[in-house]
Every structure is written in structure tokens, then in C-alpha cells.
């Protein structure tokens, strides 16, 4: 299957003067899987539908392999699309559903039958050809939809929250399966999701969207470890956000004063910054009993009281309160033989972390 490069060039969509997608430019490399991630109403689905041709952009263009798609109707774009509710034709059997796109392309009955067979094989539903969609489970229905989308050998695959209707276990196994299949076929794929885990699991590149704009584009690691904005830091995973003035510069870094009892040592900071926001991931923080900690008054370290403690299987969540009332969230991985929570509510502890964990957020 050939791979296409998809390029969005200053794509915008307005509905009655409300801007759904605002000047989005993005290049998706051939064979990559890109996830458009954001809360509902951020414009990700509108973006996907504009790429499919189901929605006409107010301005801007979609290019596929440098061919301008504006004005090309949906049915000539050769895109494979998956929908959250599967969108299988209820009056057609599984085979007929898969054959639909082939029939539209005028492929002979014999060739179509062979391709349908191959597609059924690919999605592991060979024995289900004669059934109707209503006789299948959700996961099976989405496999049929996948077969139907792939059999036409599309230029790209578009996934609109494809696994959102499945329950957790099935969703996770389908994510891995879909990702493996996409890699094997080398098919350029764009998916829309509000589920950060899904985006992190499946995508080569994550595009975080907010209010119709691109918030950050990057790999899973980049997005998670170096969020470009407060929004990204909070939307992807959990973050402890601290805010304060630069107290003292040292080399390329600085000390940030957050509160009387807490200062942060930041290794890299822009020269012009005088007032910064810092995010620290909850799993980067180590909790220790008072007295066990080497020195309580250093940077990146603070004494606090355990406000809430939640045991969640392989991790425990601690919500700590500092003396000045600031909250710190800590995720601590549990050991296999550990007897429940290590710290009790009300206990006085020291929270500390290494300075590389302090990530300065450029936009806040």
C-alpha cells in the first residue's frame, strides 16, 4: 500500500462566526500515525472531517502528496475512515459492507470477492462474512469497519475516536493491534481522540489542540516530558505547577522562589524570564519521612503533611499540603510485597526531586 504525505496549510473553519479550527498548518509524514488530541470542542474532529472532505474549509487547503484537495469531493478522495459508532450499513452483511467500496470502484465481482476474503482475513473475521452487523460485538463491528476501509487501498486512514465505544480491556488490545497493522501496512493514519493514553500508545506524533489551534506538536516523549504550555502540562498526565519570580541566576539556570518554604533549582531558563511557571510530574517526586531526608532546606525539597492517600494497585497517590497551603501530588510506584500505603494521612513528610525534573513552561 502506498503512503501519502498529508499537509494542512492554514486550515480554518468558521460556523456562524464561531471559529472551530483556526489557522492550522501541519505536515504528516508518509506512513506516520498522528493523533489529534484535545478536549471536546477543540476542533480536532472538524479538522479530520476537512481532511476527509466531509466538511469544506472556510479557508486554507489540504494537500495529499502535494496535490491540492480543495474541491475534490469526498467520494473521489480515496480515504478510509473509521467512526466511533462503526457506521456499518445495517441492511448489508459483513461481506456486502466490505464489498461496498469495491463496488463503487467498479471492480469485477470475482476480484471483489477475492479482496473481501483477504480483508476478512486481515481483520480476523473470516467466518463472519454472512452475518449482519447487529449480530456482532462492538469490537467485531469495528474490525469489519476497518476491513471495509482498508479494502479500498486508501491513500490514508482517518480514525474518528475509533475505539471510544469499547470497554477498557478490549480498547487497549485493539489499540496495540491497530497500531501493529498500521505499521505493517505503512499507511498514513490520522486519528482523533480525547484519550491521552490512546494517543500515547498509538501515535508517532501527537498534535495537542485547544480552541481550534495547535497547542503543541511532538512525539509522546516530547509532549509528556516537555509540555510547551500550562494546558498541555495539565491535559497530558498530571502536573504539579509552581509559579514564582527568579530569585538568583546561576549559569544558564536559576533559583525560583515559589513560597517561603519552597524554592526550585532550574537548570535551563531563558535569559529574559523574570517570572516563570514550572511543572513537575508527580512520579518524579520522592517522599521521605522527616529526618530521613538529608537536608530539608535545600531547593527542590519541601516539608508537607499528607492530606490524602490513595492506594491504586501498582501506584499510590499522595496529596500533600505544604505549610503555606500549596498542594503537591505525588505518584509512587508500589512494590509487589508492599503492605498498602507507606504514609498515613496527617503524617509529616519531606517531598523532594531532582532539578532536571523541573520543566519551565514557556507559555502560561
Amino acid at each position, binding site marked *: 500500500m502506498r503512503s501519502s504525505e498529508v499537509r494542512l496549510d492554514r486550515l480554518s473553519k468558521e460556523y456562524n462566526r464561531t471559529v472551530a479550527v483556526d489557522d492550522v498548518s501541519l505536515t504528516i509524514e508518509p506512513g506516520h500515525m498522528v493523533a489529534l488530541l484535545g478536549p471536546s470542542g477543540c476542533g480536532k474532529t472538524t479538522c479530520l472531517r476537512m481532511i*476527509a472532505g*466531509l466538511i469544506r474549509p472556510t479557508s486554507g487547503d489540504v494537500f495529499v502528496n502535494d496535490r491540492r484537495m480543495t474541491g475534490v*469531493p*469526498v*467520494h*473521489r*478522495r*480515496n*480515504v*478510509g*475512515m473509521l*467512526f466511533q*459508532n462503526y*457506521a*456499518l*450499513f*445495517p*441492511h448489508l452483511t459483513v461481506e456486502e459492507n466490505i464489498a*461496498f*467500496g469495491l463496488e*463503487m*470502484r467498479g471492480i469485477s465481482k470475482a476480484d471483489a470477492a477475492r479482496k473481501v476474503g483477504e480483508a476478512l482475513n486481515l481483520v480476523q473475521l473470516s467466518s463472519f462474512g454472512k452475518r449482519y452487523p447487529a449480530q456482532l460485538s462492538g469490537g467485531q463491528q469495528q474490525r469489519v*469497519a476497518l476491513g*471495509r*476501509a482498508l479494502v*479500498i487501498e486508501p491513500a490514508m486512514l*482517518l480514525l474518528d475516536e475509533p475505539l471510544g465505544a469499547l470497554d477498557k480491556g478490549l480498547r487497549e488490545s485493539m489499540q496495540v493491534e491497530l497500531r501493529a497493522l498500521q505499521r505493517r501496512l505503512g499507511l498514513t493514519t490520522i486519528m482523533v481522540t480525547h484519550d491521552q493514553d490512546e494517543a500515547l500508545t498509538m501515535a508517532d506524533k501527537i498534535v495537542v489542540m485547544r480552541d481550534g489551534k495547535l497547542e503543541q506538536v511532538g512525539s509522546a516523549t516530547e509532549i509528556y516530558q516537555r509540555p510547551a504550555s500550562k494546558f498541555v502540562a495539565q491535559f497530558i498526565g498530571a502536573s504539579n505547577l509552581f509559579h514564582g519570580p527568579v530569585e538568583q541566576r546561576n549559569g544558564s539556570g536559576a533559583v525560583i522562589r515559589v513560597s517561603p518554604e519552597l524554592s526550585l533549582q532550574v537548570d535551563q531558563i531563558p535569559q529574559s524570564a523574570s517570572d516563570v511557571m514550572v511543572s513537575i510530574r508527580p512520579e518524579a517526586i520522592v517522599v521521605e519521612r522527616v529526618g530521613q531526608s538529608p537536608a530539608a532546606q535545600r531547593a527542590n525539597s519541601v516539608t508537607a503533611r499528607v492530606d490524602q492517600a490513595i492506594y491504586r494497585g501498582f501506584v499510590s497517590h499522595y496529596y500533600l499540603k505544604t505549610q503555606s497551603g500549596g498542594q503537591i501530588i505525588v505518584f509512587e510506584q508500589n512494590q509487589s510485597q508492599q503492605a498498602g500505603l507507606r504514609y498515613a494521612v496527617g503524617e509529616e513528610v519531606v517531598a523532594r526531586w531532582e532539578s532536571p525534573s523541573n520543566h519551565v513552561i514557556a507559555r502560561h
Partner: protein
Amino acid sequence: MDERFSGFGAFILYTITAGMMLFILAPLLLVMAVSVSDSYFVTFPPQGFTLKWYAKVLQDRDFLEAMRLSILLALGTTAGSLLFGVPAAFALVRGRFFGLAAIKGFLLSPLIFPALVTGLALLQVLTKLGSQDARLNLLIGHVVVTSPYVIRTVVTSLQLVDENLEDAARTLGANRLTTFWRVTLPQIASGVAAGGLFAFMVSFDNYPVTMWLANSEYSPVPLVLMRQLVNVFDPSVPAMSTIIILMAMVGVLLLEKLVGLRRALAA
């Protein structure tokens, strides 16, 4: 089911249901009974049993001519109202345009306005336009009156069709027309069939609009029936009525057989 409908409650429920059925069906049953009465006047209870009134009716040139006209008119009306109503319903449900609500109200208005007024207005307009052909005028009038029924049933069934199905078909290479034909229409078939049946029946027994638009040469069944009723009220009138009742029943049963009446009306 068994638990809910048993004991005294069930008795009350069945009694009320039977009472309602009798209330609705009694006039029809009465007509049917009288139609086989072996007397020259319409009397109840019927006296004796005869099919001679049916024999008379089925040899009555006026009645047969009226039947032929009414059936053709109803078929034409059904086709016309489907041709007009289905696309209109599609536009009302899928469209996003200015004045949608107003147009919706307008298209359904013949259901609200008295048919008598609609008929008179149509007569005036058609006369002004110089349309002399009573058959054409009747067809136009009946399409106007029946289209709202089609629009309503099709709108309700279209609202239940997932738009993603259409989007999926289009991404798979179907243009809008093919998408409608191959994907949307099969989903709304029951609504279309129900609308069509309504159109046929409403056209077939419409009196108030027909009265204005028919002439002496082209008189559909309701007018002939009325004329007969005024002239000689013998059991041939109930016989004609019975034939119409049986026709309606066949229509309903046919719809039930084809798409399931419950589904068609619920949709």
C-alpha cells in the same frame, strides 16, 4: 408481561380495550352488515342475506368509472407526494439553512389548515392559472394534501438514521445520489412505505378538496358515493363502502407484510 397483565387490572384493561375497539369498528361493521341486507332500504338489523347489491354495484358504470379514476388518482398522488415529500424531508432533516423551521412549518401546514379551505384556495389558484383539466387539478390538489403525511413519516424515520452511515458511504466512493439510494433509502424504507400508504388512502377517500376540483366528467369515488347517498339510499351505498373498507384493509395488511406496520408507524 404475564405479571403485569393479570388479575383484576388485566380484566379492566382488556374490557376498556375491547370497548374502544368496538367503538371504533362498530360503524364499519354496521355498514358491512347492512350491505348484505335483502331489502330495498338501509335497515338495521339487516334482513336476510344477499350479495345482489355487490352485483349491482360491480355492474354500475358510474361506480366502476369512479373506482378506476380514484385508484389511478391515488396511485398518481402517492407517486407525486413521494417524489416531492421524500426530498423535502431529506432537506428538512439534513439541511442547515436559513428559515429551516419556517419552511418545515409551511410544508406541514396542510395538516393544520381545514382541507375545505385548502380546496377552495386551490380551485381559485388553478382557475387563475387557466388549468382546465379536472384530472390534473385533482392530482395537484391531492399531492398538496397528502405530501405532509409523507414528509412527516419520512422526517421521523430519517431522524433515526445515523448520518455517519452516509459519511461512511461517501468516503467509500459513493456520490450523494448513490449514497441516498444504497444506504439512506433502505434505512427509511418503512417510513416511505407508511407515508405512501397514507398518501394513497388520504387521496382515495378525500372529499373536501376533491369536491372543489372534480367536475361532472371526472368524479372520484367519494363524490359518487355522496351523490348516490342523496339520490337513492339503498344498500348499494354500504356495498360500495364495504369495498373501500376491504381495500383499505388489504393496504394495511400489505404494509404490515412488507415492512411491518408497527415499525412503519413508529419510525
